[in-house]
């Protein structure tokens, strides 16, 4: 999860863990769609538009992918 985030947003793992949020310079709308695509590919899911829009932070993204049956603990 952290890896998908850091690769899509081109930031370090520590920046992701520090609580990066949507709307910052590195996480704009274009990067957001790259991130959504990366998460969908990583976990083999398809995220609804409402969830795409709601994905505003790393924690929120974890909550959303969990909703699609992704087990982040394994």
């Amino acid at each position, binding site marked *: 999860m952290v890896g998908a985030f850091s690769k899509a947003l081109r930031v370090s793992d520590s920046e992701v863990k520090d609580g990066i949020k949507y709307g910052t310079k590195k996480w704009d709308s274009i990067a957001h*769609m790259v991130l*959504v*695509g990366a998460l*969908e590919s990583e976990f083999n899911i*398809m995220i*609804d*538009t409402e969830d795409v829009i709601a994905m505003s932070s790393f924690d929120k993204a974890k909550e959303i992918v969990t909703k699609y049956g992704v087990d982040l603990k394994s």
Partner: protein
Amino acid sequence: MALTLSLEGKVALVTGSTRGIGWASAQVLAEAGATVILNGVSDEKLLEQRVAELRAHGYSVSGHLFDVSSSDAVKNVYQRIFQSNKRLDLLVNNAGILEDSVLGMVTPEMIDRTMHTNVLGMMLNMQYASRLMSRVGGGSIINIASIIGRVGNLGQVVYGASKAAVIGATLSAAKELAGDNIRVNAIAPGFIDTDMVRKLPKEKFEERMRSIKMKRIGMPKDVSNAVLFLASDLSAYVTGQVLGVDGGMLI
């Protein structure tokens, strides 16, 4: 990869594909080797018949009955496409409605119905399709606009506005999605022999015929051939274009 009209291995969704231009497009894409997903809004029997007709030729095809302007229905269909096909390469946004009315008699409900199907439906499908396409490295979206969206027509303020919106959305989406190798183009058919034009009064029909410089009505196949071109690798470097298929109505 060789430049070819073959669509082997590609998956295509054609909305509004039980009749007219949509049906002709579904046929030509299936003939070119694509797995084709058909769509109708209410006539389940006709949809099943169309699926059976293509399967009888040995083509890979399925059908989904859904309203393109329902966000929940569109979401569910793309989830099912993702689950069963794992990819989408081509979208032909063809579903549309036409209600003629002079400006003074246009009702808010008429505007709502037309914009919902012709504009909202087109955008919802582009939205979900582009996300599936980006996952397989690209694709082609073909929006069926109309000559009316370019030059207007008496009694078609609402329809013309909706088709002008299709063109505007095509141009913007083409810019937005080019970086993902997703091409977005529109086709603007002229006077095509479909159910829509057969309802025209005789004098209107003849007036339209006189404006066609090639002196014949267009056939759905004329439009679907353009769809095949825009779906294939022959148009690999073509995006953000509005291709008129109108027998010279505009020249």
